[in-house]
Each structure stands twice: as C-alpha cells, then as structure tokens.
C-alpha cells in the first residue's frame, strides 16, 4: 500500500466527503469485506469497494466474476464484468456452467454484491420491473445472476444509491431474488444455502439483517442523519438495533486511494 504521498497522521484523519457520495459508500462497503475471502464482485460501486478492501482491510480478498474469472488480478479498473483486464493475469477462467454450477451453487462464494431498485424488509430484491409486469412503467435489467447469487452466496451485500420508500417499500413490485424468508414461505423444505442479504448500505444508513429469517434493522446512521430520518425514509416500520451508532467516516487515505489510485479516470466516482 502506497501512503507515501500522505504522512501517517494525515492519512488516518477522517475525510469530510458527503455521506451520499460514491467515496463514502464505497469505503463503508469495503470495511464490510474484512475477513471475507471469496467475493462475487460486480462493476460500479462494488468494484471500487472490493479494490479498496484489497488495499486496506483485506489484502487476501479473492475476486470472482460471473463471467467465469476466478482470482482476478486486474491491472486497471474493469469497465464490465467481462473486461479483458480481468482475464489477463487471472488465476483461472472457467466456463459459465462451471461458474454458476460449481463455484456459486457449489458453495464457494462468501459474499455477493448486489444492486437493486427495491429492497424489502427481509432483503428480497426487485431488479425486474417497476409497475405492472405486463406493461411495466420501467423495464429493469432483470435477474442476470442475482437470483443465483442470493440463493447461494454465504451472504449478500446490497448498495443502494437512494434511500426512500420507493427504494425500500413495504411491498416489492416484483420479487426477482428472494430472501430465505420468502423462499421458505413458498416451501419450508426449500431452504436456500445462503443467508441472503446481511447488509444494505444506503446514502443515509447501514441496515443489517443478522438473522437468516429476520428483518433488516437500522444498525448505523451516517454522520448528520438521525434515526428518525432513516425510519421516515423507509417504507415499513423498520426496527432499530439496540447498539445503533454513527457510521464511521472514511479516512483521508481511503478517499485518496479511491480517487488517485483506484478510479483515476473517474469511471465510477462522480
């Protein structure tokens, strides 16, 4: 890790970046990766988080992409999950059947990063439609591998760019990737191997779901945000953790790494 441009005491100072900024969200997401080994990484904000984690809390993180790349060592920031920069110098590239069948469904992924248009109280996700399925107001990207990641990764992290009752509704318009709660409501014997969503990081708060069959609770509120604001911005009556605290800001060094070493071309940082 190159910290030569900042003296040690400056580097560990806390940054004043806005809690809704990509830098803040990526730094919070990166810290959640401490102690996790194999991460199913996406593009965008998760790519920043994983790269930052590798330079800070978790040098041993192993990057897996749904394109079949395992143990990626990219020399630059990937502009897609099938970017050639992920392939050159990777430890393995397997076919998609092996990636989804053996690596993921076989139980080798510790954390999956997912995005969503809507998240409900149990961490079920909608990435398919806003409005009616037949004539949707918005046709969203659909599952891709999300339904499989949700079912099979040991746990899933979700990063949301909005926190309002539209993004965190009482009822999803469509359930693309079900929480274990919803899977077992269909059939109590069909228990997914994974925990489902364990952490949701939003521009206002960090929500956690410690129990595989439980609900999301407010675990951390970002600096300057109150618990009541978070509750008001959530579409159901969300519970608050007993030990709720203020989210720790990113350090100056984390923000510098994101801006000056990870995303130098501002592909994902805005």
């Amino acid at each position, binding site marked *: 890790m190159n910290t030569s441009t900042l003296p040690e005491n400056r580097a560990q100072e806390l940054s004043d970046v806005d809690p809704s900024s990509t830098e803040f969200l990526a730094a919070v997401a990166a810290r959640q990766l401490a102690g996790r080994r194999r991460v199913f990484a996406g593009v965008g904000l998760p790519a920043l988080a994983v790269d930052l984690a590798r330079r800070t809390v978790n040098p041993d993180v192993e990057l897996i992409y749904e394109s079949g790349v395992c143990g990626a060592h990219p020399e630059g920031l990937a502009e897609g999950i*099938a970017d050639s920069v992920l392939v050159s110098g990777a430890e393995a590239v397997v076919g998609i059947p092996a990636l989804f069948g053996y690596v993921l469904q076989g139980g080798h992924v510790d954390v999956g990063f997912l995005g969503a248009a809507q998240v409900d109280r149990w961490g079920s996700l909608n990435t398919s439609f806003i409005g009616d399925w037949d004539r949707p107001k918005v046709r969203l990207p659909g599952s891709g591998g999300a339904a499989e990641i949700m079912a099979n990764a040991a746990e899933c992290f979700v990063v949301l760019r909005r926190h309002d009752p539209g993004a965190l509704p009482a009822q999803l318009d469509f359930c693309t990737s079900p929480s274990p709660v919803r899977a077992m409501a269909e059939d109590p014997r069909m228990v997914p191997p994974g925990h489902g969503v364990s952490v949701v990081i939003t521009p206002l708060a960090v929500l956690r779901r410690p129990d595989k069959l439980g609900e999301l609770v407010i675990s951390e509120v970002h600096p300057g945000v109150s618990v009541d604001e978070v509750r008001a911005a959530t579409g159901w009556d969300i519970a608050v953790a007993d030990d709720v605290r203020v989210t720790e800001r990113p350090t100056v060094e984390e923000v510098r790494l994101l801006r000056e070493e990870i995303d130098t071309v501002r592909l994902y940082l805005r």
Partner: protein
Amino acid sequence: MATTDDKVTDLASAVAAHVRDGMTVALEGFGHLIPFAAAHEIIRQGRRDLTLCRLTPDLLADQIIAAGCVRRLVASFFASGSAGSLHEVRRRVERADPAPLEVEEYSHYGMVCRYQAGAANLPFFPLRSYAGSDLPRLNPNIRKVSDPYGGPDIYVVPPLRPDVTIVHAQRADRAGNVQMWGIVGVQQEAAYAARTVIATVEEVVDEEVVRSDPNRTVIPSHAVAAVVHCPGGAHPSYAQGHYDRDNAFYREWEPISKDRDATLAWLEAYVHGVPDRAAYLEMIGAERWAALKVSPRLSQPVDFGRRRLAEVGGRQ
C-alpha cells in the same frame, strides 16, 4: 483433413444457407466474442420473426431487434452492462413502440441450464434458484418437480434447442475445430444444443496449429457446419489477445438507442450501408480501430509430449 471437410465459407453464404425466417437463433458470447458481424449480416439479409437467445442481450439485441428481425427474445438480463439501458428493448416492452416484443425471461443460470439440457439431450435441468421468486409466475416454463430421492422439491427448466447457434472465436481450422480463450461463456453448451453451428473467427489456421493445443478447442469440428474468416467480427465487443472492447462505443450507443430514428439511421449507415465486416471496420475508421489494439501477453507453452515409440522395447 479430407477436402470434403473444408467448411470455410463467407458470412453472407453461411447466413443465407443456415438462418431462415422464424428460426430460433442463439448468438452467444458473454461480454466477450459477441458475434456482431453475424448479427449485422442477419439484419442485411432481412430475416424476420426470429427467436433470439442470449444470456445478456447486449446492444447486439438492441440492433437486431430495432432492425425488425426478432419476434421473441429469450434472455436473462436486459441492460447493456456498465453502459445503461437497451432502449429499443425497453420501448417495445414498456410501450409496444413500434411493436411489442415477446420476452421469455430466466436468470443467468436458468439460461445456462437450458443450454446444458439441450446439449446433453435431457428433458429438463434442475437448479437451486427460484424458490420464493416471482420469476416462475412470470415464465410458466420454469416449473417445480419433486425429488425422486426424497429431497425437497426443486425447480427445473426445459431444454433450449436453437435451430442455429452462431459464435465468434479467435481461431478455427478449415474443418471447424473452434478454439477460443479468455471468457468462453456458454458457447460450448449453446453450440451442442443447436442443430447447426456457424463460427466466425479472427483467424483460419492450419490443422497443425489446432492439434498443437487440443485443450483449447471449445467446439470440435463435428458440431460445426460453417467457418467464416471474419477479422474484427466481435466489434464493439472484443476478442482476447486481438483487440479490446470499444467501451466508448458502448457509451455512445446509449443516446443513439434512446432515439429510434437515430438507431435506424445508425443501422442504415453501419449495417445496410456496408457489404461486409471489412467495410464496416473501414467505416468506423482506422484510428478508432488502432486504439483498440492490445499489447501481447503470451501464455507459456505447454508440453503435450510424444511417446518415444521406437525406443521403448516391445512396443513396435
């Protein structure tokens, strides 16, 4: 190789011979080796009512659907990766503008399992997805069966058997042994699932080149009907070791795709307006093409060995 095994042809002939109106066509390549040149030839030849199969439709789907070739899309993702929406797909799905598009939707692994069932001649394929999801209600082809061995019920998907699968690869020999490296996606399964396979390739190589590295052959010649020499055939997607993805083009596509007239104008200029891929590459410009060049990063050769027959007593 017997001369009768020479499957090399040109793209126009391959598409004319194997792709007909109303067929189910898989154009595979997972973010890599996407067969754009073949899709453009299908557009030029004015095919209609196709069922297009792709895990990630990509802007290839936006183009071929905008051109009016496709009635039904079988897929598991409906965006353009990092570069935004596929607006032609969205217009048709959200507003039936200018016409509706039938969509048969799965998750990625659901599509993979469909190809695997098709390739292995199985009646269905089980996967541990979909319990609690709305996807089975959206798509009645996703069904639940009981486990004959006493485990919990499990969802299954039916085989996908395209009439034609088209892939792009780094190289093949004239008999159709197709070699690719980098992200190999679901091409082997999509090829074996199909009745007919067309491979467009960056290079047609001698049989000796293929046989120097047999593990690199992803689709053996017995599964391939036609080989087309088509350098640059994956642009704006990429071919590992040949040229990189044209990320700028993917970003430029978003505003084009947003405006149906602009989409049609693009197709007129870059597809209908050119006879083949060589002319297309000329049209996008030497400078743009040169900027996508990659530096070499060679793999270490492996030794397949050769039995020393003459020196081993008794073997002869």
